[in-house]
């Protein structure tokens, strides 16, 4: 063997050993410092959806700031992936007449004036810029002739404003964020479920979470926490388009430490959920021209929104669908009642290019090929406008120093009583960025003021709770309580509400809470105990469901998504205010805060 060959072979063998060592590195869902208890994060983000990842990217721009994203699943399984239609921002690529001001007006009107107009103005200014940033980050935006990203018109928008990636825009946003997080080497604390935010006397200590893999209760000290855990749509269990994970964990954790739950009653029902299981057919269906038809084939939106027709805002369209069903002009009965969404007049090429996911979902779950037949649809719980009370939209701060909130779990409030389609993706990115920057700046100027002993005590309490609840061999099952909760929420606190129904729901929820207190988890293993996870999630949903009912009872008017049959009119005199539900003893108390009105004075909405 020549010397050169010898060296070549030697080098190859060396490289193989090095590569082998790299690949053999086991990896962990948790950074070593967290497990050993020596970690102290400057910015700890809970939730790995669009808001959480965007916050992490922004916070990590500050030098010397230690950032991590905690998530109860693997990082890319969040609700953000499910957003379909697009991401709003007045970038003016497609419609040069658009502007942040018009976007703001559409948003305020869509919100039925229950949003803070200063926050909305900030959001629309920032979201116009955000789209270009996203493009620069590598998102797969569909293009127009001049090479810029194309924008489509979504419900309630005056102009074509939503940049999009076919009908998987949220997936595109989330994976672009994940790519950036990998590039920036952001720490993920994966498969760890938030159990508690520990804060006493206004001082944040950190969080307690359960490591799903080992079942170990972890305490993670942090100078700041950004809650980005998503919405609470699973309070309606099957009648929702949300993922199983949308259980409002962060909102419940904040509620427990005295941060109010703002506008909880503002739950958006999306008009086009599949009749059989609530899975969403994207609003881009209607954006691309799909018609809503009743059982006699009539485009019934002419009755409710003669100008906007199918492109009215979601609350209006959804309530119209429900009215058709109630008037006997739907198909099917009971929970399976529906109307039609008809695509047959749309060119097949457009469907294939821009609505392929919609076509697949209808085929899969309803056995309907939208090329040939209309799909049966009905309202489905889609979005939580309410959430953690953010007191400063420029920082996303809550009333407790060091705790921030962004994304669907927060209520800033931009969406008021009804969110417009394609506003949520830009909202999560704009306010994720804002929260990330603010938390990092705060952490930089502050020492750790928490109490690690309190964290340890909380860990011990959770260990006892785990042992106690998983040991039970009697009591109701988590699934049974959950299904009963969903039934009463859908029937009594759903698309249409009234005093009697809400009272009924309140009583039901109290009974269910009592059952929950003695229910059985059914799995006592510490390893990957998803049954315990579901048990914790149900506890959160019961609390938040009660919040929805409280807010709904107190708001004696109809506004946006909150439609009271006993108070069908909007009442600006008494209710142009945010509902604030907070903990008082074992129960809740209700307070109000006036809405910030800017240049757009409340008028009646017409579409």
């Amino acid at each position: 063997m020549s010397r050169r060959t010898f060296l070549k072979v030697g080098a190859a063998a060396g490289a193989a050993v090095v590569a082998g060592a790299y690949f053999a590195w086991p990896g962990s869902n948790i950074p070593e410092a967290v497990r050993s208890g020596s970690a102290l994060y400057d910015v700890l983000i809970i939730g790995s959806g669009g808001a959480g990842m965007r916050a992490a990217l922004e916070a990590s721009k500050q030098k010397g700031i230690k950032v991590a994203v905690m998530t109860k699943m693997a990082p890319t399984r969040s609700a953000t992936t499910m957003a379909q239609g697009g991401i709003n921002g007045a970038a003016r690529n497609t419609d040069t007449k658009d502007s942040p001001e018009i976007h703001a007006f559409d948003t305020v009107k869509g919100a039925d004036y229950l949003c803070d107009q200063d926050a909305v103005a900030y959001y629309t200014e920032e979201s116009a810029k955000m789209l270009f940033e996203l493009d620069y980050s590598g998102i797969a935006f569909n293009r127009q002739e001049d090479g810029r990203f194309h924008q489509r018109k979504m419900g309630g928008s005056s102009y074509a404003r939503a940049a999009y990636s076919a009908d998987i825009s949220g997936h595109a946003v989330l994976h672009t964020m994940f790519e950036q997080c990998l590039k920036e080497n952001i720490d993920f604390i994966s498969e760890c479920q938030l159990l508690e935010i520990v804060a006493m006397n206004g001082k944040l200590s950190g969080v307690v979470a359960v490591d799903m893999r080992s079942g170990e209760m972890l305490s993670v000290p942090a100078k700041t926490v950004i809650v980005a855990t998503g919405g609470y749509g699973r309070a309606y269990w099957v009648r929702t388009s949300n993922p199983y994970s949308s259980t409002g964990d962060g909102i419940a954790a904040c509620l427990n430490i005295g941060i109010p739950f703002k506008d909880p009653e503002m739950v958006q029902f999306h008009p086009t959920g599949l009749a059989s299981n609530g899975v969403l057919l994207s609003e881009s269906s209607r954006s691309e021209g799909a018609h809503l038809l009743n059982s006699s084939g009539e485009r019934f939106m002419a009755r409710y929104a003669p100008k906007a027709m199918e492109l009215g805002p979601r609350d209006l369209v959804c309530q119209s669908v429900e009215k058709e069903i109630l008037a006997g002009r739907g198909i099917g009965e009971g929970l399976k009642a529906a109307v039609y969404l008809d695509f047959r007049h749309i060119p097949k090429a457009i469907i294939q290019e821009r609505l392929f996911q919609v076509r697949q979902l209808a085929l899969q779950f309803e056995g309907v090929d939208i090329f040939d037949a209309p799909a049966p649809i009905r309202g489905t719980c889609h979005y939580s406008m309410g959430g953690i009370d953010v007191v400063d939209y420029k920082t996303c701060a809550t009333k407790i120093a060091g705790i921030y909130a962004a994304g669907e779990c927060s209520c800033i409030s931009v969406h008021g009583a009804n969110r417009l389609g394609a506003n949520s993706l830009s909202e999560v990115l704009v306010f994720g960025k804002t929260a990330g920057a603010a938390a990092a700046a705060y952490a930089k100027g502050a020492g750790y003021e928490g109490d690690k002993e309190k964290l340890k005590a909380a860990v011990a309490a959770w260990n006892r709770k785990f042992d106690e609840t998983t040991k039970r061999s009697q009591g109701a099952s988590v699934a049974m309580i959950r299904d009963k909760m969903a039934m009463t929420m859908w029937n009594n606190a759903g698309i249409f509400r009234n005093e009697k129904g809400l009272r009924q729901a309140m009583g039901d929820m109290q009974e269910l809470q009592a059952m929950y207190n003695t229910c059985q988890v059914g799995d006592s293993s510490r390893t990957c105990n998803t049954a315990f996870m579901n048990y914790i999630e149900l506890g959160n949903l019961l609390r938040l469901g009660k919040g929805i009912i409280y807010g709904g009872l107190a708001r004696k008017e109809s506004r946006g998504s909150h439609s009271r049959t006993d108070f069908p009119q909007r009442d600006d005199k008494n209710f142009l205010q945010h509902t604030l539900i907070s903990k008082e003893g074992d129960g809740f108390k209700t307070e109000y805060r006036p809405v910030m009105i800017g240049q757009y004075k409340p008028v009646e909405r017409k579409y």
Partner: protein
Amino acid sequence: MAITLKIQRFLGEKKWEQEYRLEVETGMTVLGALIKIKETMDPTLTFTASCRSSICGACAVKVNDNAVLACETLLADLLKRYASDTLTIAPLGNFTVLRDLMVDWQPKYDRLKKIKPALQPKTEFSASEGCRQSKDEFKKYSKNSECILCGSCVSECNKSNLNSKDFLDPFIFSKAAKFVADSRDKDAVAHLEPAVKDGLWKCLNCQECAAKCPKGLSPAEDIEKMRIATFEKKMSSNEGSDHAMAFYDDVKELGRLDEAKLALKTEGLKSALRVPVAYRLMRSGKLNPLEQAKPIGDIEKVRAIMKAAKEKKL
């Protein structure tokens, strides 16, 4: 109808198969069945799921040894396909199992970082004005952006099964190919180099990844495209590319392979290690080192086909 699901269980050190019998309801998916079992029969059954509409990638499992998304796979279809009332469900292959059907993604993310998985925008673009790209350029990579990180391709990959230490997971190649094909990216080589280093030429081309991807991506095809890109980018050669070039040169020159020279062209001096094999081949008359290979009769036709293929940039 009633069916039996044989589910592979795993907890700690223990591995077993457990049977569950349940009624199939109309429209019931594999995920629907797993949930029904967990909620009504056995709360300890462990799996992951989130969106239940085929977009989050959390619920991929193996049914009768084939990776599927549990949330989109109808039991009725499976029963028909396999003509049986019994199905087996197991965790994805080529992953470490954490418990039952739940697998460990963490090492995959660590490996994903190797191919520089983020756009490196060209200098003419900016964060304030975005990028420019034609509709055709967009189409070149948009399919690859549809990967949901479900792991179906990994589970089915025969090369990963054989040895994953020198081979990145199929979806990672698709991710790299996305950036290579994206006209907004300024440096394809930065994504190609690690791909070459970690197995680009080691794919067995079995096409299982393409067959099993629930989103219709084809990592195998992406690997082919990136191999071509390494030639276009005139990247330094390696055994894989030399082997391909040896085939190419032989076919162009002779219209067939000259096997006597193949090892030499592919491996260079390292082929000296093959001498014992060559010696045995010679002794049994299967290799004649003195034979001068001659072009086949229709060599011009072969060359014309190759020229056409090259110009069309297949």
